[in-house]
């Protein structure tokens, strides 16, 4: 199309030029004088004619034509917006939002609209998404497999290119790969291969944990196979297979499941660790704990992420987050809030030491002290209870049936009796203990009578009194609500206010407001409130606010989102159940290398407190511990580590302390990375496999809960791969994570991959085999007969036409069809033509409630946590929200030091993302070329600093404000001062995104040739190296012992002028 327009363009210009020229020549033939006088007369005509020409429907503009559009999913940040990629001549020329997806346009273009029609409408995406093209065509991307040059140090920047297949062989086979002696390959770590033995051992290890079996008994039972264990004296550490760690970073759904299949189900290692604790984990864990589902005597987990229904809410509290800068995610949140603001005048407050963009628009900006969110919330809890402003009716409902009677979708444990043991609330009283029922029922008291409660019972409504106490044959118990009230009353409002450094009126006003809009108020929180050592408790306190007004499930209340179709199967409608499609699944067992999801007390390593390094029974994906644990070889040494889409060294507080470990080939003998560029961490790898950018990838991301309808965005390749294409068993494919895993699996002979990988006759040889089956699950739906329509002839044509530019290596319509299954194919095409599947926005609500409400229980008292102990101090955790200062792992408060008078915090810019985009993305770079030390004018004046002055930051943990890359380069935590009004005095903020020392900013030598880096890509600086290290543990930042969150906001710094 454009070719035409291009041909036509000169055609459009040429004659004009010539005519102009002739005419002018005629005039200029005379003297300038003549021409000057005559020209005006003619020029009127000339002008009119010229305008006509420019306008003659010559406005060829093809990029919005359906055949130039492929819908996919953005990954500039992890909000995973649905995007509309416009491709002309095989080049991506523009990205916009997908108007058919409720996440990127409210109201959306009805999903049933034909792609031809839908093409005219655009959805909304943020500046990062708009700048995606710059990221896709980043000239610093890696295209070939790189290997650390033998004889050179990790991080030395010396590489040799290596053939993909050779690299895979070396990684699997091991050997003297770097002239540094023998390196064990994956095959040497893939020791336990017999599923039966594994099964038996796993079962017995479970017994050992429950103290139902001794190590000696285990050793005698498995005498023949003890060799497969990391340490026969500690069988609970699991098989040697666990010494392979897959550090998955920011891995995306779709790839995540693939990684788990590879690592857990096929290779038999328990160690897949994602990035979540440097992200927002304590937020997730707080929600998960408080929505933990009681199922026949077991706590089976709950929702990790809920949000205010910002489209209809009438009052919102944002704790340490907002709607227009970060969070999940700017496009949908901004759209809904702005519309709500304009049409219903929603009132909102932002609690943030920094005047964020959202705070700058808020009705109240409350610049509270960092880390005091829990105190503020508990202050509100106290006022609400003291003034009886909570929703008693809601709180008294003790089970599903009672809730239903009140048209509520959720209920709480407010009335449940909690046993007090050794003076502390320990666990919920069970009905058998109270002699009123079974041990899987709980107990409430109604008018002095004790009643058993089955929380999930939908028939027999049970309500309980909020304030009840039980003293009966040695049992002492009180209702969760009463315990909460007492906890809240441990401090006066004045004390709360003082802890937060705000006025008491603020707390009262917020509490009053919060309880003045019925169910249409909500409290939202994210990183700012939880990436603290007290993050979990802060989260619990804030969620408690929502529980007190019982806003969950209501229009304008708290929402869990519409959810998604089960792309990996398991529901009746899904054609493919991936879990079952594995010929021989490995029961991976043992303690994880970062000791998450495990209780210290249960392990055979337990010999009293403190543990050598912390254990994390309540959380998962404890990212910051992965590498330091390998450094200490605790609980066991790591032999092979894969690093994917993460740069822990750069993005983790005090992450620089991990560099020396990564460089130590004794601690991590084989380090393999998969990255799009040579990143801050992948630069230390032994092998670096290039990955396709997200525009070249498949993926099945999940939308944030603020999307109230069911959505399954589907990521699919939009342009041809920019990485090298390889041939694996006769199949062309681009080098990317999938190709790498499939090749390694085949080389190792792992079940679940290659021929019959999905079971007899169903092979797994190409990424298509994986993702198109997932697409089929989405297309056919969860319930029977829930399939999307089959694509008609014209849609089929469009589908192919829009992909003519894609090479066989990623797009082969027959291959795709077979992978998806011929019967499902037309439905799959229907989904792919729309970038996934979604319910329309008119299905968001049913009357005054959400269509997909969270229907379950909220726990005011969290039993599981109350049962746990801090593995370092040995002290018990608390089942109730608790106001706590920032602490080291051993529970000694961080305290304050006059030498370091400022609290350092960090934040995200709306036009910056993860560790990407700015400043390497030149379009975004122009919006903010470098970050700064943002401080209040009063502080600047005190220090005699002017805007633009250069300063360095230093902390107790990093008194020099320097860090060492271990390759001779020492960098400084140094930047310009930015002076603002919108910052709490005494607090300074440094934004994320900047200060890269790799990612295309540094030179590298490949095959002896110098590949120049672009130093401008390292502009600005990262504050992470000054964040406090937990020196008692070593080489790791302060961490929330419950939620596992890395602490980003608990460090005091001094500001040194340079």
């Amino acid at each position: 199309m454009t070719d035409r327009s291009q041909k036509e363009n000169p055609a459009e210009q040429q004659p004009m030029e010539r005519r102009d020229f002739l005419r002018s020549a005629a005039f200029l033939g005379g003297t300038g004088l003549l021409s000057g006088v005559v020209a005006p007369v003619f020029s009127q005509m000339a002008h009119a004619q010229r305008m006509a020409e420019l306008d003659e429907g010559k406005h060829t503009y093809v990029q919005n034509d359906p055949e130039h559009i492929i819908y996919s999913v953005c990954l500039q940040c992890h909000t995973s917006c649905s995007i509309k990629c416009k491709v002309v001549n095989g080049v991506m020329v523009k990205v916009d939002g997908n108007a058919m997806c409720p996440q990127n346009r409210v109201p959306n273009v009805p999903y049933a609209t034909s792609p031809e029609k839908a093409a005219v409408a655009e959805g909304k995406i943020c500046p990062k998404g708009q700048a995606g093209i710059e990221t896709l065509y980043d000239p610093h991307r890696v295209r070939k497999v790189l290997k650390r040059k033998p004889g050179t140090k990790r991080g030395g920047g010396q590489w040799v290119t290596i053939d993909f297949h050779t690299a895979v062989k070396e990684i699997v086979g091991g050997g003297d790969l770097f002239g540094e002696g023998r390196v064990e390959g994956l095959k040497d770590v893939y020791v336990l291969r017999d599923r039966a033995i594994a099964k038996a051992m796993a079962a017995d290890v479970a017994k050992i944990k429950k103290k139902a079996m001794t190590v000696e008994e285990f050793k005698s039972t498995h005498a023949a196979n003890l060799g497969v264990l990391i340490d026969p004296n500690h069988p609970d550490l699991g098989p040697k297979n666990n010494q392979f760690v897959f550090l998955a970073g920011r891995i995306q759904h779709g790839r995540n499941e693939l990684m788990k299949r590879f690592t857990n189900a096929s290779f038999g290692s328990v160690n897949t660790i994602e990035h979540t604790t440097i992200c927002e984990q304590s937020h997730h864990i707080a929600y998960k704990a408080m929505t933990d589902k009681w199922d026949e005597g077991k706590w089976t987990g709950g929702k990790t992420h809920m949000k205010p229904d910002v489209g209809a809410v009438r009052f919102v509290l944002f704790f340490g987050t907002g709607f227009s800068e970060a969070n999940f995610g700017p496009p949908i949140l901004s759209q809904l809030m702005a519309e709500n603001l304009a049409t219903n005048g929603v009132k909102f407050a932002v609690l943030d030491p920094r005047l964020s963009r959202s705070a700058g628009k808020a009705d109240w900006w409350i610049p509270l002290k960092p880390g005091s969110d829990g105190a503020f919330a508990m202050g509100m809890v106290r006022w609400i209870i003291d003034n009886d402003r909570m929703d008693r009716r809601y709180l008294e409902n003790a089970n599903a049936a009672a809730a239903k009677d009140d048209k509520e979708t959720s209920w709480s444990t407010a009335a449940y009796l909690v046993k007090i043991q050794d003076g502390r609330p320990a666990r919920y009283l069970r009905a058998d203990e109270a002699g009123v029922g079974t041990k899987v029922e709980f107990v409430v008291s109604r008018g002095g009578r004790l009643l058993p409660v089955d929380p999930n019972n939908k028939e027999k409504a049970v309500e309980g009194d909020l304030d009840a106490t039980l003293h009966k044959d040695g049992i002492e118990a009180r209702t969760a609500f009463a315990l909460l009230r007492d906890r809240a009353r441990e401090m006066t409002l004045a004390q709360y206010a003082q802890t937060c450094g705000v006025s008491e009126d603020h707390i009262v006003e917020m509490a009053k407001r919060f309880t003045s809009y019925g169910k249409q108020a909500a409290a939202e929180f994210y990183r700012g409130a939880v990436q603290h050592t007290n993050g979990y408790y802060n989260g619990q306190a804030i969620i408690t606010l929502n529980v007190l007004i019982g806003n969950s499930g209501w229009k304008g209340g708290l929402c869990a989102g519409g959810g998604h179709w089960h792309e990996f199967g398991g529901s009746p409608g899904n054609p493919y159940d991936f879990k079952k499609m594995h010929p021989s699944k490995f029961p991976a067992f043992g303690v994880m290398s970062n000791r998450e999801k495990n209780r210290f007390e249960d392990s055979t390593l337990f010999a009293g407190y403190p543990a050598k390094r912390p254990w994390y029974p309540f959380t998962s994906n404890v990212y910051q511990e992965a590498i330091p644990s390998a450094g200490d070889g605790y609980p066991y040494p790591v032999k092979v580590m894969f690093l994917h889409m993460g740069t822990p060294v750069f993005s983790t507080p005090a992450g620089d302390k991990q560099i020396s470990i990564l460089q130590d080939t004794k601690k991590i003998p084989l380090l393999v990375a998969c990255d799009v560029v040579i990143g801050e961490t992948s630069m230390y790898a032994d092998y670096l496999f290039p990955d396709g950018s997200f525009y070249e990838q498949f993926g099945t991301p999940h939308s944030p809960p603020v999307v109230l309808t069911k959505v399954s965005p589907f990521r699919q390749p939009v342009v041809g791969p920019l990485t090298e294409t390889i041939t694996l068993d006769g199949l062309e494919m681009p080098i990317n994570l999938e190709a790498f895993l499939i090749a390694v699996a085949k080389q190792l002979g792992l079940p679940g991959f290659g021929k019959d990988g999905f079971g007899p006759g169903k092979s797994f040889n190409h990424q298509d085999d994986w993702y198109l089956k997932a697409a089929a699950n989405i297309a056919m739906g969860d319930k029977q007969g829930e399939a999307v329509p089959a694509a008609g002839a014209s849609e089929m044509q469009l589908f192919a036409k829009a992909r003519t530019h894609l090479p066989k290596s990623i797009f082969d319509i027959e291959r795709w069809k077979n992978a998806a299954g011929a019967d499902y194919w037309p439905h799959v095409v229907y989904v792919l033509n729309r970038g996934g599947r979604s319910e329309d926005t008119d299905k968001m609500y049913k009357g005054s409630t959400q269509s997909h409400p969270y229907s379950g229980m909220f726990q005011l008292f969290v039993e599981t946590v109350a049962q746990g102990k801090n593995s370092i101090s040995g002290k018990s955790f608390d089942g109730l929200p608790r106001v706590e200062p920032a602490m080291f792992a051993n529970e000694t408060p961080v305290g304050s030091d006059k030498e370091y008078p400022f609290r350092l915090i960090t934040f995200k810019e709306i036009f910056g993302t993860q560790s990407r985009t700015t400043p390497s993305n030149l379009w975004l770079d122009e919006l903010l070329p470098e970050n700064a030390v943002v401080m209040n004018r009063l502080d600047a004046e005190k220090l005699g600093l002017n805007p633009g002055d250069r300063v360095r930051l230093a902390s107790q943990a990093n008194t020099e404000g320097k860090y060492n890359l271990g390759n001779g380069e020492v960098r400084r935590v140094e930047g310009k001062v930015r002076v603002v009004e919108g910052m709490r005095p005494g607090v300074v903020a440094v934004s994320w995104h900047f200060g890269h020392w790799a990612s295309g900013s540094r030179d590298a030598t490949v095959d002896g040739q110098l590949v120049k880096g672009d130093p401008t890509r390292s502009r600005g600086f990262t504050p992470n190296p000054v964040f406090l290290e937990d020196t008692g543990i070593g080489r790791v930042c302060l961490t929330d012992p419950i939620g596992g969150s890395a602490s980003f906001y608990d460090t005091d710094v001094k500001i040194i002028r340079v």
Partner: protein
Amino acid sequence: MSKSEKTLDRRQFLLLGGLGGAGALATAGIADAAASNEQNQGSIRYGMVVDIRKCVGCKSCAVACKAENHTPPGVAYSVVMEQEIGTYPDVRRRFVFRPCMQCATPSCTKVCPTKATHIRDDGIVAIDYDRCIGCRYCIAACPYGVRAFDYGHDYHSAPTPYENQPSPEYGQHKRRARNTSPIGNVRKCHFCLHRIKKGLAPACASTCLGNAIHFGNLHDPEARCWVHGERLRSLLASHNNIRLKEELGNNPSVYYLI
């Protein structure tokens, strides 16, 4: 079909729209389509209504503009101006999106010696790159500082595939090459004329996160925003609206709701 017919069925559509999200949205779809017909009608004056109360300062508009028009480094058709108002702790942040005002009495067209910069019947002030001599008088004369001279910078020393693609501006598909237009020309926001011609709203308005940029025909009393479907006149009537530097008499086509 005649104008009245068209506005009629558009209104019916909105009626439906009022009932369900789907319809309301479709306003967009339809408004777009309808708008494209508007091309053939007289008395068009394209304009914007920017609701700065809703602007969240994300700058997606500015980046979308770049991507859409392939503007080189050093050329920005639109910017979002930020301001901090007040002193601690009583502070607010204000964001103002500033495209070309498409003045009805523009300073730029007046001074342009070659009429390269000209005002179209639809109110859009466009530039004929093949006539512009690059004298920059228009830059000196524009009271809103929206015009930019193309000095010929490029983002990447070796152009990326994207950079090698022509810009769709004015439907001319000019490829970037040294010393050829638009290098050496003055450039500016043209309300994405090439998109309007196809019935598509400007790139900035389409992606606006705060639903703050409204676009449509200011002359048609019934005209609705191409993106969000609101009736433009109602919007203007519903809040205080101002135009920048009203006193200069340029009669801008961009209104701000405050």
